[in-house]
Structures are given as structure tokens and as C-alpha cells.
């Protein structure tokens, strides 16, 4: 009887210890999460304020490098087929395929256009993470219960202003800078889509907490499937690089429309290989590759 009582007491204390540990972990994780979110919020707010102050006090940088016409003439003398229009095309397409990667998860095209160094930049990492999230969300689960709760992120609209070549550097590596403003709109079709998109763009602790609560609430109440919206708008400088001694192939534009190996026409603008012979598709702008993307302050 005494043994039974001791065992009972031990079991009771073990259970209470386990609950204590769980309570501590839960409390610590909530506290840490709020601390991290608060830290991010404070840092972003301070940076945003500094940026606004800087913008208010300093005049905007000249948009185009005054040496550009001379540099273009120099480049044309060494590479007679060089056409700046092709770089503007590259910029238009690069912005759109980033949008494609984020909406559909298809990274293949942006990989075809970007230099390896792009993936070490902030936007390279951002696009890769977003693309992975989109692939996970779009994958059709075998379980029909999960399939019904699948979230569709739909690429709805993309608009860009005319891109502008603003800088050129000639050296061991050629570097061209193209400025473009774009606006991209995605629809999110899912139960509780409104709260989910609000979470994705939350800028404060309170808005994040409110939208998280709304996601949980809408899931519990089986909210109807409806669209919500996510947009990304801004002006960016796109840097393109190529090796210093490169020359533009005048046939590249044609080769990007018709496979040079088998003669088949590329039917998709997003194709990176020939559907017929699997040969890699050349880019109309030759060896120029997207290296970096920076927001214009």
C-alpha cells in the first residue's frame, strides 16, 4: 500500500514536471516570437523613418549616368552588334519571370536568365523562398480533404513602365544598369484568403496578431472560398553582367525563336529548352545575365 502511494506520488510529480516543462517551453516560445517580431518592427520602423528623412533632405540622384552616350559609343565600337534595346527587353522579361516564380513556383526561367551570383543577393533568396512556398501551396495533395483546402496563388496582372538604361561599366566585366517600375498583382483563392494575405503583408505586431487570429477563426468557421489580393509595386535598378570580351551574336534574336539544332519553333515564351530536341534555348540578349536588383531610394 505504501509502495502504491509512493508510485502514485512519483507519477503525479512526473506529470506535473512534464506539464511545467511544456508550460515553460510554450511561454518561452511565445515570448521569443513576440520579442523577435517586436525587434523586426522597431528596426523596420527606424529604417523607414531614416529613409524618409534621407529622401527629404537629399536631392534625388541623377537618373542617367551622364557618361552613358560616350560609353555606349565605346561599347559599339568594340561590339558592333550590341543593341541597348535587348537589355531593356531583358529587364522587362526578368521582372515578369520573377513574378512567375513567385506565383507559380516555376524557377526554371529565372534560373535561365540570372547569373549564379544573383542567388546570393537578397532578392535572389527572396524569390527562391517565395517560389518554394508557391510550389508547396500549388502541389495537389492525394488526400481530397487537403486538396479542398489548397491555396491557389494566381498571377493576374503585371504592368511595367518603359525600362531605361541608366548606367554602363566597361572593364574586365561589363555591367549595365536598367531602371524599371513595375506593378504585379496576384489573387489568392482559398478559404480565408483575406486573412492569409493580410498576414503576408503585415507591417506591425498588432496587424500580424489580428490577421493570425483571423486565419485561425476562418479555418474554424470553414470560411467560404474567396479571392484576396497581393501586390508588389516599386521602382528597381536591375544590374546585368557579362564577361568583358563578349560580343553580341546578331543571330541570337532569331535563335531565341527557332531552335538552331532541329528548327522547331519555340511555342512558349517561358520555355528554356526546345520541346522537340531538348536543346538549351539561347537568350536574345546573348551573354548578359541578371546579377542584382536594388530598390530605387
Amino acid at each position, binding site marked *: 500500500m505504501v509502495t502504491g502511494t509512493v508510485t502514485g506520488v512519483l507519477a503525479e510529480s512526473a506529470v506535473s514536471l512534464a506539464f511545467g516543462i511544456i508550460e515553460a517551453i*510554450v511561454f518561452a*516560445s511565445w515570448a521569443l*516570437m513576440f520579442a*523577435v517580431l517586436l525587434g523586426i518592427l522597431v*528596426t*523596420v520602423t527606424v*529604417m523607414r523613418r531614416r*529613409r524618409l528623412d534621407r529622401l527629404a533632405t537629399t536631392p534625388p540622384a541623377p537618373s542617367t549616368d551622364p557618361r552613358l552616350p560616350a560609353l555606349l559609343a565605346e561599347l559599339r565600337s568594340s561590339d558592333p552588334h550590341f*543593341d*541597348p*534595346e535587348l537589355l531593356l*527587353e*531583358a529587364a*522587362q*522579361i526578368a521582372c*515578369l519571370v520573377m513574378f*512567375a516564380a513567385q506565383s*507559380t513556383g516555376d524557377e526554371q526561367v529565372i534560373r535561365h536568365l540570372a547569373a549564379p551570383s544573383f542567388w546570393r543577393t*537578397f*532578392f535572389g*533568396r*527572396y524569390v527562391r523562398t517565395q517560389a518554394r512556398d508557391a*510550389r*508547396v501551396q500549388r*502541389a495537389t495533395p492525394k488526400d481530397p480533404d487537403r486538396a479542398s*483546402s489548397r491555396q*491557389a496563388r*494566381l*498571377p*493576374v496582372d*503585371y*504592368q*511595367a513602365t*518603359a525600362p531605361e*538604361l541608366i548606367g554602363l561599366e566597361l572593364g574586365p566585366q561589363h555591367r549595365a544598369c536598367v531602371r524599371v517600375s513595375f506593378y504585379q*498583382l496576384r489573387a489568392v*483563392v482559398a478559404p480565408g484568403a*483575406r486573412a492569409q*494575405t*493580410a498576414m*503576408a*503583408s503585415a507591417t506591425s505586431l498588432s496587424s500580424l496578431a489580428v490577421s493570425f487570429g483571423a486565419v*485561425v477563426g476562418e*479555418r*474554424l468557421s470553414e470560411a467560404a*472560398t474567396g*479571392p484576396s*489580393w*497581393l*501586390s508588389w*509595386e*516599386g521602382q528597381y535598378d536591375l544590374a546585368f553582367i557579362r564577361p568583358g570580351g563578349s560580343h553580341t551574336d546578331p543571330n541570337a*534574336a532569331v535563335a531565341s*525563336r527557332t531552335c538552331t539544332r532541329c528548327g522547331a*519553333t519555340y511555342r*512558349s*515564351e*517561358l520555355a528554356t529548352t526546345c520541346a522537340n530536341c531538348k536543346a538549351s534555348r539561347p537568350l536574345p540578349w546573348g551573354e548578359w545575365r541578371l546579377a542584382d536588383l536594388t*530598390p530605387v*531610394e
Partner: protein
Amino acid sequence: MAAEEKLPLTERIFYAYSGVSRWLFKRSAESRAAGSRANRNSTPWGGAITLIRVVIVLGVVLLFPVFMLPMMLARFALVGRKGLRYGASVAIVSGDAARWGRGAMPADEPVTQIRAGLAAIATRDQGFRVRVLTDWAVGVTGLLCRSVVTGDAAWARTFMANGLYRAHQALLELRDRSDVTCEGFWQAVDATVVGASRSPLVEEVRVRVTCQGWRQERHQPTGVPLRGGPDPGTWSEDLTFARAADALTPPVGGLPASRCPSCGAALELDPGGACRYCQGIVTAGRHDWVLVSWQREPW
């Protein structure tokens, strides 16, 4: 999830938690629905089962940061301080603000500035006529309508610059892959120049067209309407035409007159923008005006 997708451990932990929570919430909703039917002949165990369910759901909610934090910290480590700096300047917006508050068209330039821009263009190119561009903008709007409604970019080949055409074609493909369709019919009823400029490299003219008609976008698999509706409406679109700073209006009229600006033949272009007769690429803006930007009001 795609079988070949290799997710980091922190992401797998969160997705596992997310899957469990989704399953629990679904079961909870089902049992609530069943409970309301069985309410009339409830058993003594009913209350206890409900209580256990509530405790489990509460537990899942309470444990949220345990599963969320590793993923959050890993992503934060990935983007670092630069991510925060860019986060302060990157404008990602959600909800109605994303749909209606963004993508608004730029304001008109002052009339004096427009006149000066047009005069600078006309001084260099005696054949330049504003009316030709505004009339062309009206025709272009009709072709853009056909292109969007049919999902076929080829309707836009004769007037879009190569970069814009590729982007337009890729967008239509993306929308098609995602089962987003557009129905409707609209046409331009007015066109006005709202911007004109000349730089050492390019000349640009922005034309604002007033459109009338209807349009509706839908996600086909779910039937969810996305934008617009069957009711007629009026809206504006900005069409920006540009050409190289040294280009001159071709003698036979060029692209606005459906003529090749290079050889003067009737306009027939391949998908790359090359004339069927002279093989010259005429949609790069070197020879003639081409559409370089198409901006729509939020709708």
C-alpha cells in the same frame, strides 16, 4: 508537395504542424456540424468529448510559436539585415488596398511640358503627326482587347516593342496555366496625349485612351470571379509609344499605317517582329514608334 521538393528541416517541421492543425480544424468543424444534428438526443459523453476537442485545438494554437519560430529564425538568418533594409522600402500590399490602391496611372504632365516635348520631336522629324499616334492608340486598344480575351499574344505583335511583347505573351501564358480567363468587349472612344519627352537616346509619347465596354476575369476551376463584371463601364488606359531618338517617320507611314517601316511593304511580321519581306526587325523601336508600356487603371 512535390516529391522531389527538398525542404529545410525548419520548413518541414512547420508544414507538418500546419497539416496536423488543418486536419484538426476540419474534424472540429465536422463534429460541430454533426453535434448540432445530434443535439436533440445528446449523450452524457457528448460534453466530455467536446471538452477534449476544445483542449486539443487550444493546445495546437498554444504550440504555434514552437513550430513557427525555427522557420521564422531560419528565414530571418537567410535574408539578414539587408532584408530588413529592403523590407522598409519594398511595397507589398494585401487585400483591397492591393487591388484598388496600387497601379494607379501617373498624373498628366503639365500642358506646357507636353507641348515642348511634342515640338522637340516635330522639329527634328517633319513627318511627325500627333493625330496619327492618337488614332493608332484607338486601333491598338481594340487589338489589345482581342489579345487579352482570346489569350493570344499574336494580336499585339504589330505594335508592341519586343520586350513588352515577350512580357505580354509570358503573362498570358501564366494566366492560362493558372486557369485565369478574361471575357469581355471594349473599345477606345477617345485618345489624348498626356506626356511627351525627348532624351539623347529615345523619344516618348504617352497617350491616354478612354475605354468603354465590359470585362470580367474568373478563376475557372473554382468559378470564383476575380475582377470586373458583366456591367458596362468606362475606364482609362495609358499607352506609351517610343522610338530611337534618331528615328524618322517612314515615307509610307510605317507601323501606324500597317506598313513595314524598313521596306514599305504591307505589314506581315513573324513572332520575332521581323518583316516577312525584308527580314528587318521592325518592332525594336529603331525604325518607328512602338508600344513600350501599357498601363491600366485598377479594376
